[in-house]
C-alpha cells in the first residue's frame, strides 16, 4: 500500500530497498510547510481517490525501477497533517548515486503530476482552501490539473 494514514518514516522504507548491491540510496521527503503565497498555514488535510492513487503509484514505481534498474519505496500520507509532518517519502536505491537520484526525482515529480491526491490548506486567518483550485477556492478550466497526463508527458484533452 502506497497510501497511509500513519506517520511516514524513512527507516522502514530504507529497509525495503537496501541490498548489498545498492551503493547509492537517495531519499526525498515532502514536508508540510507553514506558509503558502505569503500566508501562514497552520495545517493541511490530504484526501485521495484511493484505488486509482494506489494503481498510479504502483505504475510510477514500476516505471522508475525498469528505467534505472533500481528499487523504489514510496509512501504518501492521507488525512490531517501538522506543520513539519512528512506528507510523502521516496527512497530509491541503485548501484550508483546517479541512477538513485534520477529515479527518486522521477518518482516524486510523477506523483505530483499523476496521482489523484488533493490537499486542503488551513490558514492562520481562518480560511480553508483546496490547493490548485485558484483564487477563493474557485475552479477554472485550463489549470495544470485539468490536463490529461500520461507517462509520455502531457497532452491536451
Amino acid at each position: 500500500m502506497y497510501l497511509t494514514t500513519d506517520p511516514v518514516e524513512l527507516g522502514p522504507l530504507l529497509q525495503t530497498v537496501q541490498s548489498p548491491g545498492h551503493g547509492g540510496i537517495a531519499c526525498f521527503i515532502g514536508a508540510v510547510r507553514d506558509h503558502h503565497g505569503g500566508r501562514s498555514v497552520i495545517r493541511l488535510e490530504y484526501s485521495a481517490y484511493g484505488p486509482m492513487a494506489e494503481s498510479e503509484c504502483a505504475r510510477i514505481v514500476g516505471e522508475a525501477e525498469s528505467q534505472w534498474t533500481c528499487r523504489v519505496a514510496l509512501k504518501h500520507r492521507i488525512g490531517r497533517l501538522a506543520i513539519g509532518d512528512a506528507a510523502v517519502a521516496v527512497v530509491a536505491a541503485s548501484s550508483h548515486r546517479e541512477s538513485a537520484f534520477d529515479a527518486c526525482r522521477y518518482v516524486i515529480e510523477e506523483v505530483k503530476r499523476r496521482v489523484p491526491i488533493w490537499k486542503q490548506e488551513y490558514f492562520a486567518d481562518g480560511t480553508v482552501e483546496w490547493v490548485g483550485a485558484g483564487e477563493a477556492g474557485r475552479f477554472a478550466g485550463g489549470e495544470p490539473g485539468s490536463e490529461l497526463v500520461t507517462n509520455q508527458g502531457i497532452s491536451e484533452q
Partner: protein
Amino acid sequence: MPTTATATITVRVLLFAGYAELLELDDTELVLQSPATIADALDRLRSLPGGQRLPPKPLCALNLSQAPVNTPLKAGDELAVLPPLAGG
C-alpha cells in the same frame, strides 16, 4: 407498430475534493441514453445544483485510468471527476 425502447446505461460517478463540495455530492449514479461519452455525463452533472461551476474540461478517470472526455461509456463504468491534483 413495435416501438423502439431507448437504451440506457447506468454509470457510477465519483467526485472529489472541491468538486464534491461544489455539487455537495461525492458518489452517485447517472442513467444516460446510449451511446454516451464522458462529456455527456459531465453535461448531466452540470445540470445538478452547483454543477455549472465545473470547468469545461475537468480531468477525468474511467475505471481508474485517466481518459479524455470523448471516451465512450458503458454500463457499470466508474467515472471519477478529478480536481487539479495536489499530492506531494
